[in-house]
């Protein structure tokens, strides 16, 4: 009984296997789409720094060259969505020798660790740094409990 490998037994079998895998992975990316940020930056653009104090959560991201026109910040419940889309065009007579800066679209969905007051969220973008202040919702603020002597 001879075993027939799905991609043949010859020397080109590996190449065929590899092509199949590449095609499959491409299709997966296309189906998942922008939601999982399969575009240029992957699911990790932009990198984020998040801090917290008694009043609020503070989120900071570096987005040099982006403006409030091409990025979007949406807060819904415990979720913050940070997304953007830009295409820089240097014109016809241009040759790129290096292209390291982020182009295209990104989206990050951040699950906040506590509820925030969506109506009071503030965002600002200055010198390429995005700062988002998310005041904690009333119920998330810590309250000092008075211990009464009885």
């Amino acid at each position: 009984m001879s075993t027939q490998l799905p991609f043949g037994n010859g020397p080109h079998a590996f190449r065929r296997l590899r092509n199949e895998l590449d095609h499959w992975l491409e299709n997966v990316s296309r189906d998942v789409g922008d939601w999982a940020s399969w575009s240029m930056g992957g699911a990790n653009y932009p990198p984020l720094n998040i801090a917290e104090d008694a009043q609020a959560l503070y989120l900071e991201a570096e987005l040099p060259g982006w403006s409030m026109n091409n990025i979007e910040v949406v807060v819904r419940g415990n979720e913050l969505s940070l997304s953007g889309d830009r295409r820089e065009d240097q014109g016809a007579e241009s040759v790129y020798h290096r292209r390291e800066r982020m182009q295209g679209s990104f989206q990050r969905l951040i699950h906040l660790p506590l509820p925030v007051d969506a109506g009071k969220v503030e965002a600002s973008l200055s010198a390429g740094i995005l700062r988002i202040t998310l005041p904690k919702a009333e119920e998330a603020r810590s309250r000092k409990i008075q211990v009464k002597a009885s």
Partner: protein
Amino acid sequence: MSATTSVKQESETQAPMAERTRNTRTYRPNVDIIEKTDELLVLADVPGAKAEEIDIRFENGTLELHAPIAPRQQSGARVLVNEYGVGDYYRSFQVSETIDASRISANYTDGVLTLHLPKVEAAKPRKINVRA
């Protein structure tokens, strides 16, 4: 393009032109280098800098840029997520094109440093007409 472009790259070398009193990390900014007919354009991502503090040098075909960055910790806040560090930016390049150093100009907007490096006349591409 690979996904690693989003990770901030640390620089192996400290900027030679500035001695920092505190011990901060130095990062290598992402750049786009574009060759146009008349000039070389360098766009560098250096968010959080001050235009007047950015140091640019061009000498013997080497372009160096150094942007000191002030720390930005939220005072009194506890860090929950720390995906990137804040530190100075430094990078140097070998520029093969013949650049007219006296006409180099730079501007800094929205965290991006744009350098215009005009080519010397002789380095510009010239269309040669072929006579029949």
